C-alpha cells in the first residue's frame, strides 16, 4: 500500500519535474494570501508572489514589518494555505491537507520567540518532540538528538532546562528540535529578532554551517541587513510583493531603491556610501573588513 502511494505520487510529480529538473525546494506560483482585518477590510498579506528557491540555496527574505515576509514563511510549511495560486515544496502542493505532514517533515521552521516554541522542560525531551511526532523508533531518536545537538554545538546542555539558557542557546535548541526531524529546508522566521548580538552571531554561525556542510536549504526571514549579507541570495518584500531579487551585493548596490521600501543598508555599506558621496574614492564594501581595506586602498592611492 505504502509503495503504491509513493509510486503514484512520484508519477504525479514526475510530469512537471521532467520539464525543468531538478525539482525546486520551494516554488510560489502567483500566490496571494488575504485575511480580513476589522479596520482595513480584506488585506493582501501576500499579493501575487512568484518565486523559486533551489535546493541547497541560502536565501534571505528582507522587508519591513507588515511586508508579508512572515506570511510567506508560513505559506511554505502549510501553516497557512494560499488564497490564490500554488505553493509547492519539493513538488508537494501545500493546499493538499493530506500532504501537510510530509511537507512539514521536509520544511522545518524556527520561530521568533525562543520561549514560545519549547514544549518540554528538559532539552533532550524537547529535541525528541519532533521525531516522536513522526514516529521514529526510540533507539533512533537518541541518535538523532545526539546528532542534532552536536550540529548546533549544544551537546553539553542535553540534560539542562531550556528556561535557564540564554536566548541564543534557546534558539539553537529550537534549531536542533527541527534538525532532529531531518528536514531538507530550514525556515527561520525572524529567529534572531529577539536575540542580543552574541545570540544572533551564534544562530547565524549554526545556520551557515548547516547550509555549507549539510547542503540544507535555508530561508532566512529577517530585518537585519547584516544577516542578509551572509546569504547567497536576497529577496526584498514590500507590501506583499517581491520587489527585489538578487545577490545581497546586487541588492545593496541599489541603495536608493532600497530606501523607497524603508530599508537601510548594512552599516559598513552605509558608511562606504556616505564616504563616496563626500567625494572619497572608496570601492564598494559590505562588512567591516572590506570597508577597512577599501579605505586603506583609497588612502594609498590618494
Amino acid at each position, binding site marked *: 500500500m505504502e509503495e503504491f502511494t509513493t509510486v503514484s505520487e512520484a508519477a504525479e510529480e514526475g510530469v512537471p519535474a521532467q520539464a525543468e529538473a531538478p525539482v525546486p525546494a520551494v516554488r510560489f506560483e502567483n500566490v496571494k494570501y488575504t485575511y480580513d482585518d476589522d479596520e482595513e477590510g480584506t488585506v493582501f498579506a501576500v499579493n501575487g508572489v512568484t518565486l523559486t528557491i533551489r535546493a541547497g540555496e541560502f536565501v534571505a527574505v528582507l522587508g519591513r514589518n507588515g511586508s508579508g515576509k512572515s506570511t510567506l514563511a*508560513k505559506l511554505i*510549511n502549510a*501553516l497557512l494555505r494560499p488564497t490564490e495560486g500554488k505553493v509547492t515544496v519539493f513538488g508537494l502542493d501545500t493546499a493538499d491537507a493530506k500532504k501537510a*505532514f510530509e511537507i*512539514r*517533515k521536509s520544511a*522545518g*521552521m524556527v*520561530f521568533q*520567540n525562543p*520561549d*514560545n*516554541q*519549547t*514544549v*518540554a*522542560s*528538559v532539552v*533532550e*525531551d524537547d529535541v*525528541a*518532540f*519532533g*521525531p*516522536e*511526532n*513522526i*514516529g*521514529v*523508533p*526510540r533507539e533512533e*531518536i*537518541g541518535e538523532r*538528538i545526539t546528532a542534532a545537538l552536536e550540529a548546533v554545538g549544544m551537546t553539553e546542555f542535553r540534560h539542562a*532546562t*531550556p*528556561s535557564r539558557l540564554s536566548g541564543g542557546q534557546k534558539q539553537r535548541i529550537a534549531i536542533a*528540535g*527541527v534538525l532532529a*526531524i531531518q528536514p531538507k529546508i530550514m525556515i527561520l522566521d525572524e529567529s534572531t529578532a529577539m536575540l542580543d548580538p552574541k545570540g544572533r552571531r551564534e544562530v547565524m554561525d549554526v545556520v551557515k554551517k548547516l547550509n555549507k556542510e549539510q547542503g540544507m536549504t535555508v530561508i532566512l526571514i529577517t530585518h537585519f541587513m547584516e544577516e542578509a549579507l551572509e546569504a547567497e541570495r536576497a529577496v526584498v518584500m514590500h507590501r506583499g510583493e517581491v520587489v527585489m531579487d538578487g545577490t545581497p551585493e546586487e541588492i545593496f548596490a541599489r541603495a536608493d531603491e532600497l530606501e523607497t521600501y524603508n530599508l537601510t543598508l548594512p552599516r559598513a555599506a552605509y558608511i562606504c556610501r556616505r564616504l563616496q558621496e563626500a567625494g572619497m574614492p572608496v570601492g564598494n564594501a559590505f562588512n567591516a573588513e572590506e570597508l577597512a581595506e577599501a579605505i586603506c586602498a583609497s588612502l594609498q592611492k590618494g
Partner: protein
Amino acid sequence: MLNDVTFGQYYPTKSFVHNMDPRAKLLFVIAYIVAIFIANNFFGLILVTLALIFFILLARVPFGRVLRSIKMILFLIVFTAILNLLFYAGGENDIVLAQWWIITISWQSIINTIFLAMRLLLLVLGTALLTLTTTPVALTDGIESLLKPLKYIKFPVHELALIMSIALRFIPSLMEETNRIISAQKARGANFEKGGLIKRAKAMIPVLIPLLVSAFRRAEDLGDAMDARCYSGAKGRTKYKKLTFTWRDLLGLLFFAALITGIVLLNTYLLGRFDIIWQVQQWFGI
C-alpha cells in the same frame, strides 16, 4: 519577588529512591497513605514513621528539607488538632479532665488529637518525599503511564499528560513575564504594597490582564511551533523516554507489602490488649 518560588521542590542528588521508577513511587505513596489510614493504633503509626525515616535516609535528602514541607500546612494541622481536642465527645470509659460549656477535654480527645496530628504529618512528609525525589517531568510520565489503561475507555491520556508537561514547562516563563509586567506597572506608578486586601487585589488586575493576553499569544505561537514540528496527536507517535521497573522497585514492592502486612497484624493482635487508654491509665495510676 516571584523568582525565589521554585516550582516543585526536587532535591537533586543520586540515591536509591531517586533512581526508582516514578510509577513505582506513585504506587508506593498510595500504599503508604493506605497504611497510614488503616493503622488504628499508635504502634501502627510508629511502624509507618520508622518506614518513612528509613526512606528519607535511603533518599539522602536532609531531614530539615523534608520537615520544611510541614510549614505550608502547619496551620491546618494545629487548627484541626485544637478542634479535635476541644470538641471530641468522649465515649463511655472516657476520663474527663476538664469541662466548660460545650468544651470537653478528655483522655480520649488528647489521644485522638495526637493520633490525628501524627497521621496528617506522616501524610505530608511522605508525599513531600515523593516530590523531593522525583522531577515534575518524571511524575508526569509516571502518571501518563499509570493512566494508560484508561485509553480503552477513550480517556485522552496522552493529551492530558502533554497538557500537564506543557503547563510545567511554562511556569518559569509566565513567572518571568509576571515580574516584567509588575515592574512595568510600578514604573507607571502602580503600588502593590499599600492598602488593604481588596485594594491590593485590585492593584493586581493591571498585571493579570496583560499576563492573560500574553499567555494566549504564547499559546498560539506554541500551537504553530507544534504544528511545524509535525504534531498530530497521539496516533503514530513514538516515545523517546521509556520507564522501566528495576530491582529497586521490586525491593520497594516487597517493603511496602511487608509494611501493610505489619500494620494489619498490629491492628488485629495488639488492639485491645495494648489499648492506649488502658496503658495511660496504668502509667498514671488513675
